[in-house]
């Protein structure tokens, strides 16, 4: 992870130097190194400049992840495990409707740390399997595709290109500065509120 940060030329030299100095600690105190890399990443994120997105964005997660972090607690109360939730959604007449209406209402629906987004146009026509592969999710279908409104400036959604420190903070160990092999661009945001979400699509 240190190498990832050090080799990302888009990061300020001071950040890369600070990361490089952590090499001495890496073998003896790996957890401390991770903590310091996280702090470095937070500082980078705070100083970064964001812009309003120019296209509609989306985020794909496994149903397991959606049940675990994005479903409203009252809805989750009816489903003790991700398996029970998935079984119900899969057999519903309108899975997308259940996924959308059952989401948490929160200012931090997608916390900044996990707000990795891709253009909806690039994934709109993809089924679950291709979606997982093209976005390198390492998840198996079915997936939940969280689609934001086309215009989300009113909800305060602003994005930037992710850098290595974002990947380290999110523990995205397979992230590369050159981006996804499929060529689909990724963006990272601050906290995404639930009001910014247009729909959550079921992708089997």
């Amino acid at each position, binding site marked *: *992870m*240190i*190498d*990832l940060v050090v080799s990302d030329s888009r990061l300020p030299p001071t950040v890369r130097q600070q990361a490089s100095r952590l090499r001495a600690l890496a073998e003896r105190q790996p*957890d401390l190194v*991770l903590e310091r890399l996280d702090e470095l990443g937070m500082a980078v994120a705070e100083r970064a400049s964001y812009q309003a997105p120019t296209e509609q964005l989306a985020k794909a*997660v*496994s149903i*397991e*992840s959606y049940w*675990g*972090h994005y479903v409203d*607690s*009252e809805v*989750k*109360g*009816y*489903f*003790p*495990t*991700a*398996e*029970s939730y*998935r*079984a*119900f959604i*899969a*057999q*519903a007449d309108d899975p997308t409707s259940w996924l959308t209406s059952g989401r948490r209402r929160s200012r931090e629906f997608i*916390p900044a*740390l*996990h707000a*990795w987004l891709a253009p909806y146009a690039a994934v709109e026509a993809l089924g679950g399997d291709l979606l997982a*592969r*093209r976005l*390198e*999710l*390492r*998840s*198996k279908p079915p997936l939940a595709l969280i689609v934001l409104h086309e215009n989300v400036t009113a909800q305060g959604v602003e994005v930037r290109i992710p850098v290595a420190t974002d990947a380290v903070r*999110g*523990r*995205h*160990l*397979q992230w*590369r*500065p*050159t981006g996804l*092999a*499929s*060529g689909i661009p990724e963006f990272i945001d601050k906290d995404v509120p639930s009001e910014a979400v247009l729909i959550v699509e079921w992708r089997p």
Partner: protein
Amino acid sequence: MTTATPALNRAVLHVLGHANVDRGMPITDTWRALTMDLSSQEAAGLPLSLGLALRLLYQDPSRLELAADLAVTYELYESAPYFVELAEQLRLPWAWLATAVLVAHPGSEPVLRDRLESQLKASGLPASLNRALQIRLTPDVPATNELEELLLLQRWPGLDKVRFQQLATAPIVAIAETELPKQLLWQLASKLRLMGAEIRRIPTEFKQSPQRGWLAESIPIIARSPAVVSKLRELGQSVTGAQVVVLDPAHISDRNLREVVGTVAALALRLGGKRLEQEAPSVQLQSGVEVVDRRVYTQGTYTAPEIAYLSGGSSSRIYHWARTIDVMEPRRIEGLYYWQFNHLVALRAYHWFGRITGRRISRRVISGLAEFAGRDQPGQVAVTASGEVLVVQNEEEIHSILNMQGVIPEVARLDATFQPFELGGGAVVPGLLEPTPGTRVHPAVLGGTPTLKRSRIACTTIARLVDQRGRLVAREVYPFLSEAQIGEAAEVGHAILSRK
């Protein structure tokens, strides 16, 4: 008595503390990391270690909640005391909901349930959540709506086995723990979960009687002995010998574990109409032979233009590698040079790593994959950017490797390199096994050249025919092909022939 050793506690805390809570499948991935290569003592102590780790995760709410999801998913009732404490501290709905499942388990001490119930008296939970909590604790709460009925039968399937079958409940598989090594228990639980099943652990020692409906006749029970049935019937559960799949731990291997879960899946369907998903191999050809099978991997007779099209290089570079890397030497047949599928895969992986890392890649990737002769047993193959080829026997191992935290260099599942990728400058290398939706590559069909699916018609043949005689003639020669198929094959064929 089961204990959690300090080393295990540190290991569990480390895994939980670094778990990826967003990408991938957090519960599945974290469980794999927790249960990988445990000794029998460690496997037995895992639930306690997870419970102990909770206190140290209070400042990390996402991972704390993940720990709760893990405990509920794998019914880690041994950690119930720690969850009661957690729920008392946090007073959050998710903590109470998780704790309710654990304290209601017949392997938990009854006093824990009393402690939880006294917490709940002053909880101030909304009515719907309160009822959901109560349904987790007891089958005696009547459902007042469809979702409550769903929850009631998911938790207590024996209450109404017909309705359990009719409703959109997840299939349940029970595992009797008596004389079953804990490593095997966790392995089974992992596999069954991946197939969409909820796990129900039948403890060796019942600390409280299981409540009515805890099990049902429609639920398969994996056990060391059919004697589990009489024990359960004594405890008031409605079960029969027909539900039991007997497992002999002394004769378990990866292969017959797959057979066992296959038997369980068939039984779940027969008993209760619930379908478990069979795990499909990650890369399979239409013949059903995995592409890295030893019988297939070194087949093929690829020309340089074909290799160039399918790997992303140029014909001249292929000849360069042939001169400079021994294992890339082609066969010479009637004056023409031909490479094999392993050579193609090697060059493709080389270009793939170059693309994704943005830096120069060791040529050992080429020699490593070209030398690799395939494998005898079904399994997964991963490759590193330094040219190491890793053959693992199961999905759990490969996920463990992929999740290793920067300890090893860039690594990818081999089949990841088979997907289409951009080379830069807008050039796209097509999918290896399926260059376009209507075409395929199979090393054992026509030497591996791209062909139209379900045919032995090479794309280059169509392309040459179209070039020399036009599309109309091509339609006449192949009247069973549609215009679209002719066009698609010609496009692929031209792309190959244009490679110099």
